[in-house]
């Protein structure tokens, strides 16, 4: 019965329920949100900052903001979009203030962050994928932030153009243009390195 109710509940209603429970001091509500979005927010921060140290800090601070403001969430967007917006705004504000060094092609401290291995790949293929991944991640760090945000949200977080527009607070046409230009720049950077 409970399971059927959970399936029937619309995602929006579930988001609102979480916010309501949080407002009334139910600690488990935030814990649920954290469990669901920790990896997403961390990976967003990792690709924006380029290293796991900043990514961990950014994730922590973003979730503190989520915790502080979750009670005010009114469902005007989905909780997912809202959390992305909170996290990305925090990344922008922190990374904008600090001029982070651009990423190099040397092994990054990112090596310290355990990757989640794809079980479909063998060890050799995984090693090659790691090298390739390092190269692509470094190239990503070399494209302008506005384009990087759009590409990361689309190609790594799998958001639709509509969702990205809601996260970034821009029109869909702008999203389309930023994604295209970001991919184009990425292609140029990768080709330069070849």
């Amino acid at each position, binding site marked *: 019965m409970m399971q059927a109710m959970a399936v029937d509940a619309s995602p929006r209603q579930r988001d609102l329920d979480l916010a309501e429970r949080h407002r009334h001091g139910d600690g488990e509500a*935030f814990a649920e949100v*954290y469990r669901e979005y*920790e*990896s997403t927010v*961390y*990976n967003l921060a*990792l*690709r924006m900052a380029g290293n*796991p*140290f900043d*990514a*961990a*800090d950014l*994730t*922590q*601070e973003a*979730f*503190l903001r989520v*915790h*502080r403001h979750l009670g005010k969430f009114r469902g005007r967007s989905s909780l997912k979009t809202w959390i992305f917006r909170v996290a990305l705004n925090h990344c922008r504000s*922190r990374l904008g*203030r*600090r*001029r*982070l*060094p651009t990423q190099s092609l040397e092994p990054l401290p*990112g090596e*310290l*962050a*355990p*990757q*989640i*291995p*794809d079980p479909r790949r063998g060890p050799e293929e995984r090693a090659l*994928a*790691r090298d*390739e*991944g390092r190269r*692509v*991640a470094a190239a*990503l760090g070399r494209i302008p932030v506005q384009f990087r945000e759009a*590409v990361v949200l*689309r*190609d*790594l977080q799998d958001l*639709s*153009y509509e969702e990205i527009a809601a996260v970034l607070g821009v029109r869909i046409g702008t999203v*389309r*243009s930023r*994604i*295209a*230009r970001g*991919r*184009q720049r*990425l*292609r140029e950077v*990768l080709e330069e390195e070849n």
Partner: protein
Amino acid sequence: MIAQAIHLDDDLLSAYLDGELPERQAETVESHLTDCPGCRARLDGLRRVVHALGRLERAAPPQVLAQRVERRIALAEGQSGLFERLESNLRGLSLESPMVVTFAVVLALATMVYLVSHGVARQQGDAAAPTAQPAEPVRGSIAVTQVDGHSLVRRGNAWVEVAALGEIARPVPLDSEAGRELAGRHPWAAGLLGLAVEGSAHEAMPVDASGDAEAVVLRDGDGVVNLCRRCPTEP
């Protein structure tokens, strides 16, 4: 209609790749691609980029991250709880109550004393050399400085971020761009941090912090070396 001589722009190709074009526009793009090898090559180039991004593996967040978040929330809630309790206690008192009047007078006096002493100290600090020293420097202590919300200590020629027990502290070498920027922006801190115990540099080291920066315990190969009791604040 998209004429073949014009070619498709990147926005269109990229949106087509994502399946984000309306059906009729997508058909027009497909029709153009059939006869235009140049646009097909550009589409392939974009497809390779998307494919490469799709092969980036997701990283697992550090295991201690959830604990860190939990600890910070508990700390924040503890502080707000204190204010809420104070507020609620005050709400329970009548405005005419002698206790309220006494409290208000004491609070006002305390504020005045703080502002006057703080202002004087600030003026004296401004007149002094830019490398202000902490009031009671203790040789061998680790001074902690706050930079952009990070607690940093100087170890040899590196800055190290104070981390919780079990975490790996993050070194920021002084000869790195970030280190130079840090030293450039905080010359007072460079003088202050000169008091830090010299040690091995450039290495990540486990740091044991007991929750707040006022009682940091830093361990290295020689054992516990820190005595920082009161952390300096930025002048």
